[in-house]
């Protein structure tokens, strides 16, 4: 973990996550590099999605979910007693595995679902255009802003969800396997988008796909479940280094395709 320094925008300290009495993630300490893409990789069930969901406190909407340890945003523990999860989630946006545009809102209203309140029509349109442009979707939807998002392709829907998250002007963007349900072409578009968005945002992305991690991330974190099924962070390093000279044997086994 040599190159992952402390003092970053977002970091965890000895973070453990539980569903009821079952522990899903144990003792993860990691700092995410500012304005860069960090990829979380690992086999199914290694706790990478759970870890991601702890970072914006969406984990806790599950009935019996619990967290121990801390997540520091700008040095403040987001699980601190005086922190408001709604305010946290505005600073840490999220994109999900399957595109989830709001089915009853138009494309326009989806894009600005969380834009600042009290905008007039012109302001709304400008905010929507800004968000849709930064998600590389504007040109494709500018003539049908009032229509349902459900008519868009999966890749377009996912970019609409990215636009929606970006419109809230967060500092961090969490992405949970954002291309898992998309075809290769739509995947390439999203990956390109991630590379350009990381100039503005600190991005943490879960991915199943090691090639994707190698393509889009500058830091990669490898997670693995131990014998009892509890997910642990094995190592995190510069992506180039992790994929060529991993320091842990298990990482090497995984990236060379020996399991998972």
């Amino acid at each position: 973990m040599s190159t992952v320094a402390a003092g970053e925008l977002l970091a965890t300290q000895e973070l453990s996550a539980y569903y009821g009495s079952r522990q899903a993630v144990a003792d993860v300490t990691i700092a995410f590099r500012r304005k860069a893409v960090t990829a979380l990789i690992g086999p199914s069930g290694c706790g990478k999605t759970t870890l991601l969901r702890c970072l914006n406190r969406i984990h806790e909407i599950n009935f019996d979910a619990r967290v121990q340890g801390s997540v520091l945003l700008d040095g403040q523990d987001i699980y601190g007693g005086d922190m408001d999860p709604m305010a946290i989630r505005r600073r840490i946006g999220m994109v999900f595995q399957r595109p989830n545009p709001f089915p009853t809102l138009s494309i326009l209203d989806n894009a600005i679902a969380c834009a600042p309140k009290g905008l007039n029509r012109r302001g709304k349109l400008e905010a929507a255009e800004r968000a849709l442009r930064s998600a590389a979707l504007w040109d494709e939807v500018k003539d049908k802003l009032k229509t349902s998002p459900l008519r868009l392709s999966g890749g377009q829907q996912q970019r609409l969800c990215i636009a929606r998250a970006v419109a809230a002007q967060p500092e961090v963007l969490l992405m949970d396997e954002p291309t898992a349900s998309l075809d290769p072409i739509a995947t390439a578009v999203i990956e390109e988008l991630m590379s350009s968005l990381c100039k503005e945002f600190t991005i943490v992305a879960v991915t199943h796909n090691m090639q994707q991690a190698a393509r889009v991330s500058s830091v990669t974190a490898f997670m693995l479940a131990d014998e009892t099924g509890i997910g642990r962070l094995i190592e995190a390093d510069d992506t180039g280094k992790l994929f060529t000279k991993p320091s842990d044997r298990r990482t090497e086994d995984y990236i060379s395709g020996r399991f998972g």
Partner: protein
Amino acid sequence: MAQSASRNRNLARRRIIGGLGVGVALTCAVIGAVCLLIILGYVIVQGAGAINRDFLTQLPHPVGVPGGGVGNGILGTFIILGLATAMAVPIGLLTGIYLSLFGRGPIPEGLRFLSDVLSGVPSIAIGLFAYAVLVAPLRHFSAFSASFAFMMLMLPLLVRTSEQAIRSVPQTVREGALALGMSNFRATVQIVIPTAMPAIITALLLAIARVIGETAPLLFTAFGSQFWETNPNKPMAVLALQVFTYAISPYPNWQAQAWGGALLLIGAVFVLSLGARLMLRRAMRGLEA
């Protein structure tokens, strides 16, 4: 060889059993459908002749005077159902929202249990309850007491179906709203409920269809009236009640009108069910993507 022969025999036996199963199921389905069609056909044959403009728009005539209609009963049905719906929707929907949001623990479980019990209470018992709390103390029958009884009949249906409708909205939609920093309440009201709305309206239409033909609770609440009554505080004519009164009367003219009224009620249920199906189809289409 012997093995393959026994396998073939086995296969043949399974084919026969499978065929028998399908045959029995199909026969039962046909019997059910035929019964329904006979009832429908008989009501149409008997009732169609009674339905004309006068029947729909006129007051009932006294015994022995030909003609007359059930116009006041149709109006009363609308008024009583409208009032019942206006009371049942907020209570039922909000309870459904509550159950879908805070589904676990003793209070929601208790509410669900009570709602299931309420849905099993015979409608005549509910009518008696309405009589006990709204008719007897006030010393007069009223349309409002009938609406109250209808509301009690509609509530369990609305509570459980709106809970189901809200739960059937994919969790990812709710998470998407929460992840944007919306409050639980705002996510529910602004995002989840509109998504569930077609299913909720379906539930409402079915609840109305369920009570529109109810007669037992009306006997000692709305009571019936010979006039164009619009005051919910007074006894009021209701179509289902008129069908009941006319059907057990000895006068052929009234009996014919009872068939006409029955046909109207079946027609209303048909339209409501059809509307419910259309809404549901729309809801399914919306959630597919």
